[in-house]
């Protein structure tokens, strides 16, 4: 039978080069590049004002088989530890009760971020035109699915094996009561998936992941370990083993647009907006969770922030890109002020608004107050004296008939919500970089706490329409809102949130809150 030219060519080639008996993963990767998929005329559903280059690389040379093998080993190690030794030593009950509450917030919120990052990286896969860049984004999409499941598993684990399950289980049902969820959705959802695709990459990868995952997912494991929690380091350090590829993806996004004219016009503004968006929430919330949500302190939050955000992310990522026109974020000065004070400002408000949460908070002890004063000179005079007064009035005891929100009303210290970040602030009392400014637009008064958010809102006011809790519940009584929005435990009357973690302390119920007759009103009405 006659053979075709193609068969003859293949036979001749194999005679000279025998078929390989083994091939390394990186040889496969190189071979895949020879397919030279042409995405140059890619039509994306998610356009960007930047032109992404067609020859951008992926730094780790992933192929599907090695990716799957790596991730399965990670999961095997993680679940092996959790289900064997950690369960056997009753690790869930060895966590300090204050830190147990902190993990209700951190793992639930991170789960939302990971979930939105699935969509964000899917969008970026669609927008990019370089095959290797697409490969990197695609692996990240798979990672984000893994991380969503991991965070869900942390909550499940704490619920099943730990103490005080309420808040670990199904925290999302409480999401509309208090202000913390809405701010989180601004950074973890809107920031990652709304708007220009490259802007989303800057928010998610260059700032969210390259900068803030280091305190959020790495440094947090030190705080966890110090407070008896071996579960969080086991899972979070495994999550972070994927984040380095995400950071590289963010960097390669910048590489892909570095020579585009649009970069000289827009990149510094987009970077500054992303930095401010992410820091405005992460800086105070993480600082509050670490310092006020722990018993054993690792180091002052401002030092953690200075190391991971200012020196390392600022110097090693942003500083090095200076010669390509990337500038130090204009908002850095205000961010640094926030890193020193904003978490103290936020705890003051979070404790005042404790019934609207899904976790338990604790006032600083005398020993902790000394630690705060030593590390933040001026803390006691400004914040400590307020906590002493609240404690004297019995704020932890339901029989006292006092929640600290009443103290704000009595002393005429109105609490506003920043329209852009959704972060609450009290202009009279804050020492962070927040001051009140108001804009009336489309028949509605909008309050803002800083120049940077105000500037973003002036550019795109339609993007920030989210109703805050004062607008949403104006005229309604607090216990009625908590009951309607699932803020109670399985007995149907005890609040999930509590102003203490004392296992012998009396728990607040809906009746205790009802007796206070707290009715929501919108403070902007008085402006």
């Amino acid at each position, binding site marked *: 039978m006659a053979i075709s030219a193609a068969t003859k060519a293949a036979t001749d080639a194999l005679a000279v080069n025998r078929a390989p008996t083994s091939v390394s993963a*990186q040889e496969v990767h190189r071979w895949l590049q020879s397919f030279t998929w042409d995405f140059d005329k890619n039509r994306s559903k998610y356009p960007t004002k930047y032109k992404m280059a067609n020859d951008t690389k992926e730094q780790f040379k992933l192929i599907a088989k*090695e990716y799957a093998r790596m991730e399965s080993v990670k999961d095997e*190690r993680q679940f092996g530890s959790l289900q064997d030794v950690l369960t056997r030593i009753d690790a869930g009950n060895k966590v300090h009760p204050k830190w147990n509450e902190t993990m209700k917030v951190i793992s639930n919120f991170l789960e939302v971020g990971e979930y939105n990052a699935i969509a964000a990286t899917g969008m970026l896969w669609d927008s990019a035109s370089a095959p290797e860049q697409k490969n990197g984004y695609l692996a990240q999409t798979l990672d984000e699915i893994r991380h969503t499941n991991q965070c869900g598993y942390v909550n499940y684990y704490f619920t099943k094996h730990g103490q005080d399950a309420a808040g670990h289980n199904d925290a999302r049902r409480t999401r509309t009561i208090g202000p913390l969820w809405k701010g989180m959705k601004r950074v973890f959802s809107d920031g990652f998936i709304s708007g220009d695709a490259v802007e989303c990459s800057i928010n998610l990868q260059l700032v969210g992941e390259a900068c803030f995952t280091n305190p959020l997912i790495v440094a947090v494991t*030190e705080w966890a370990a110090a407070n008896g929690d071996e579960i969080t380091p086991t899972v979070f350090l495994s999550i972070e083993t994927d984040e*380095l590829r995400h950071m590289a993806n963010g960097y390669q996004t910048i590489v892909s647009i570095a020579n585009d004219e649009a970069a000289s016009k827009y990149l510094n503004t987009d970077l500054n907006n992303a930095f401010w968006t992410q820091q405005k929430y992460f800086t105070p919330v993480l600082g509050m969770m670490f310092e006020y949500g722990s018993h054993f302190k690792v180091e002052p939050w401002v030092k953690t922030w200075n190391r991971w955000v200012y020196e390392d992310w600022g110097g*090693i990522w942003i500083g090095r890109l200076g010669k390509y026109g990337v500038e*130090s*974020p204009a908002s850095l*000065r205000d961010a640094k002020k926030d890193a020193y004070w904003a978490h103290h400002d936020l705890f003051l408000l979070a404790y005042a608004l404790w019934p609207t949460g899904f976790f338990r908070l604790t006032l600083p002890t005398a020993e902790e107050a000394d630690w705060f004063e030593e590390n933040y000179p001026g803390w006691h005079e400004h914040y400590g004296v307020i906590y002493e007064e609240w404690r004297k009035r019995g704020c932890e005891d339901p029989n006292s008939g006092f929640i600290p929100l009443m103290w704000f009303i009595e002393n005429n210290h109105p609490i506003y919500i920043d329209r852009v970040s959704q972060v609450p602030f009290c202009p009279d009392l804050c020492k962070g970089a927040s001051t009140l400014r108001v804009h009336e637009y489309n028949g509605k008064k909008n309050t803002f706490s800083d120049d940077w958010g105000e500037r973003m809102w002036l550019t795109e006011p339609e993007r920030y329409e989210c109703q805050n809790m004062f607008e949403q519940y104006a005229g309604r009584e607090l216990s009625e809102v908590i009951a309607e929005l699932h803020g109670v435990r399985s007995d149907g009357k005890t609040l999930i949130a509590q102003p203490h973690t004392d296992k012998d302390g009396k728990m607040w119920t809906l009746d205790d809150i009802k007796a206070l007759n707290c009715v929501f009103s919108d403070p902007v009405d008085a402006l």
Partner: protein
Amino acid sequence: MSNNANSYGAGIMAKTGKEFADEYFAEENQVVHESHEVVLVLKKSDEMNIIVEEILLGDRKDDNPTLVVEDRAGYWWLKATGKIEIDCEEAAEILGKDFNVYDFLVDVSSTIGRAFTLGETFTITSELMGLDRKLEDLES
């Protein structure tokens, strides 16, 4: 604790209270400063513990005297000026088992700098890969 400028508690981190605040809020520290350091976070595991102790702090200690390694509970925190490089063929020999660069990535928890693989070598560098220098593919 090392006296190396790259150590975890070096520079401003050694200061407390007002002394820390004065430097933190100083005018010159209100913008980022370019840094040629790199940071690597390795999740503790049998393999990483041996790589840190036997290679980075052992046979290869003299390769980069600026390298600092600190124990931060669940992870090793490494910082160096310039670059940190790990040859996974060398690691495999010490570990006494197959161990390629993807096995190494299983426990690399974070990188600050440009990290990449080439063959069986993992590198994190302060160089701007893709901008100052091209990322290479494995040669035939």
